[in-house]
């Protein structure tokens, strides 16, 4: 009996040791600007943690870009995206029965999208437009590559650069399509704000009887409450408003009484509220439609139009702040959540030879891209593993308690001990914790600026309000060529003026 117990303990200890997964390092060193140490860690981990190769390659890519090494960064992103894009993977079975992080890292859709976007950007900076375009296209597909249609491709930075690639290849019609798509991307907050405004204005336009009754009040509150839910379904304001209306009807159908200020919502009341919801929706939808007809071509239209202008020979792209990271929640850490890092920099102002050109405008939020990834099949598997782990843990403890019950026979106690030990071993062996490996060296958002700069060699300075600044000396601007600069607000960046000029 003692031997069996000792054996179980040893097995449990071994399993526990196996559970102590080491998180990839080098992120802190990167943010501290200690690139040499970060690089040494990445290169060492690249060999040691084969299953995370794509992650370290992506981190090396951002590091090389921050150090100004365009071709090295390109090489790393080329290999990283090759792994991310390949459907063949190592460790799939291990991830099912053991820890999820034992599977080969391929990144979430936003990480794949960013790796492909960086690769496209580096192709573009190298003047290899025929390769930049496929990278941006693959980035758009990676962004939209989730199960839910509602989380379709919505990355303005990808559409914007796809437009520039088409423009550089001489296909202005296709470039215009992509610029239009970029201009039409709505962020969650913008969509919520637009619908809220349209709804409030629509309510004011209704006759007093249609807005002052209790049912009208409830209808307004109900519809306003569902705007966020509608916007998680669709980013397009008109489609999101329609989804909010449907949610409101669902709520009414469920007979939620709390919305009636504590009173009872009878069938007749519910019909009246539904009528007001319909009326309000139609009025708000008309307002949104009117805005579009009046030439509202999207919230990013002005930024996109400036960047799309082929006469602008200076394109500045700024990665602002620290990228999203993943952390575990749930009793067994079975859920991966997206966290947002704080950073002091607010905006990037660009100066050429000491003269302020303009402030770069935000075109995309990487945090938003990360946090709207949608559900995964793996989440369900991990939830199931968590339930199993909990049940076997309790079952094992109960059986072991029974093994110590003096009222049971020796044979029964032995049986209870074996069952208890087996259940506890199964519980220890079950690894429900979510994979939280993430490409933390991404920026939080992407800002862009396009300008005309006289040919010659200039000093370009990027000043970060609330943060530091970065100077790029001897930046070349040539007649008929484009100079592309990528700066990162933490420190560093790269520029290129390729020999190949856009057509």
């Amino acid at each position, binding site marked *: 009996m003692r031997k069996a117990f000792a054996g179980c303990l040893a097995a449990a200890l071994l399993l526990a040791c196996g559970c102590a997964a080491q998180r990839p390092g080098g992120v802190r060193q990167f943010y501290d600007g200690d690139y040499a140490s970060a690089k040494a860690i990445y290169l060492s981990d690249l060999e040691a943690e084969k299953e995370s190769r794509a992650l370290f390659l992506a981190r090396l890519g951002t590091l090389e870009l921050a150090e100004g090494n365009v071709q090295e960064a390109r090489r790393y992103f080329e290999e990283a995206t090759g792994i991310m894009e390949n459907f063949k993977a190592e460790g*799939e079975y291990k991830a*099912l029965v053991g820890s999820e992080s034992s*599977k080969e890292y391929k990144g979430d859709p936003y990480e794949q999208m960013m790796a492909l976007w960086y*690769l496209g950007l580096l192709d573009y900076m190298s003047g290899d437009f025929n*390769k930049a375009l*496929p990278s941006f*296209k693959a980035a*758009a*597909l990676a962004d939209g590559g989730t199960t839910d249609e509602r989380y379709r491709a919505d990355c303005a930075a990808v559409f914007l650069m796809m437009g520039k690639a088409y423009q550089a290849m001489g296909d202005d019609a296709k470039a215009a399509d992509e610029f239009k798509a970029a201009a039409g991307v709505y962020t969650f907050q913008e969509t919520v704000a637009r619908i809220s405004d349209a709804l409030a204005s629509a309510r004011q336009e209704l006759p007093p009887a249609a807005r002052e009754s209790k049912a009208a009040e409830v209808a307004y509150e109900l519809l306003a409450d569902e705007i966020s839910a509608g916007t998680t379904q669709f980013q397009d304001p008109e489609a999101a408003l329609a989804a909010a209306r449907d949610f409101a009807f669902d709520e009414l159908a469920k007979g939620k009484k709390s919305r009636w200020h504590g009173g009872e919502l009878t069938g007749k009341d519910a019909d009246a509220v539904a009528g007001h919801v319909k009326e309000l929706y139609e009025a708000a939808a008309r307002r949104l439609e009117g805005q579009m007809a009046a030439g509202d071509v999207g919230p990013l239209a002005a930024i996109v139009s400036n960047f799309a202008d082929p006469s602008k020979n200076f394109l500045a792209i700024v990665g602002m702040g620290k990228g999203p990271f993943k952390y575990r929640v749930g009793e067994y850490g079975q859920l991966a959540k997206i966290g947002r890092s704080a950073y002091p920099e607010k905006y990037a102002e660009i100066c050429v030879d000491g003269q302020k050109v303009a402030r770069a405008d935000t075109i995309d939020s990487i945090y938003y891209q990360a946090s709207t990834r949608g559900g*995964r099949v793996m989440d369900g598997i991990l939830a199931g593993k968590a339930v199993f782990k909990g049940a076997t843990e309790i079952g094992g403890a109960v059986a072991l308690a029974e093994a110590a019950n003096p009222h049971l026979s020796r044979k029964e106690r032995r049986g209870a001990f074996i069952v208890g030990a087996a259940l506890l071993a199964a519980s220890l062996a079950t690894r429900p914790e979510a994979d939280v490996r993430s490409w933390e060296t991404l920026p939080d958002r992407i800002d862009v600026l396009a300008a005309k700069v006289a040919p010659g060699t200039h000093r370009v300075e990027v000043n970060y309000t609330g943060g530091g600044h970065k100077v790029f000396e001897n930046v070349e601007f040539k007649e008929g060529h484009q100079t592309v600069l990528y700066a990162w607000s933490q420190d560093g960046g790269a520029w290129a003026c390729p020999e190949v000029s856009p057509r």
Partner: protein
Amino acid sequence: MVKKVAAVLAVLAAVMAAGCASKSAYVNPDEPDVLGGTGIDSQDVRTVAQVMSRDLLSAPAIAQATGKPVIALLPTKNETRFRVDTDIITEQLRNDLIQFAGDKITFVERRRMGNIKEERAAKRAGEVTSSGEKMISGANYFLTGTLKSISKASGKMRSDYIYYSFELTDAESTEIVWAKGYDVKKVAERGVVYQ
């Protein structure tokens, strides 16, 4: 006893060495490889080049040409999501055409015009030796290609329809005298832990 232990150790060492050895093998480029995926494969490139070159040679503009037509191959444009070096397709097509056409077609280089002009200027300036001056050959036709695709993705599946399109354009009249397409559609499913 010692012999037995030594034999066991030798077997173990051999097994470990076999386990550590990296594996590589020659495979047929005309067949799909084990990596799969929905992208452009060597098989596609070779098939496209063969189909195009055979069809082009039977086109009236080439087959019934009175003289030896001069063709300039321009770079193949890639509008797919696959980051391939399209020179592979252009060069495979050119080589197949040369192989199948024999001396029925003359190909001229247009991608290295800058270098050619520089060399000609240096020869004419007496900076380098010259074996005789020639006119740069004008092309009767441009052979151009474009790769296009329709790509779709869900959390589980990915599909890519790739269309390879080539055309022969009269360099004087701009008439398209020959065109042919070749298409491929591939679907792949992601493992459950990635869905």
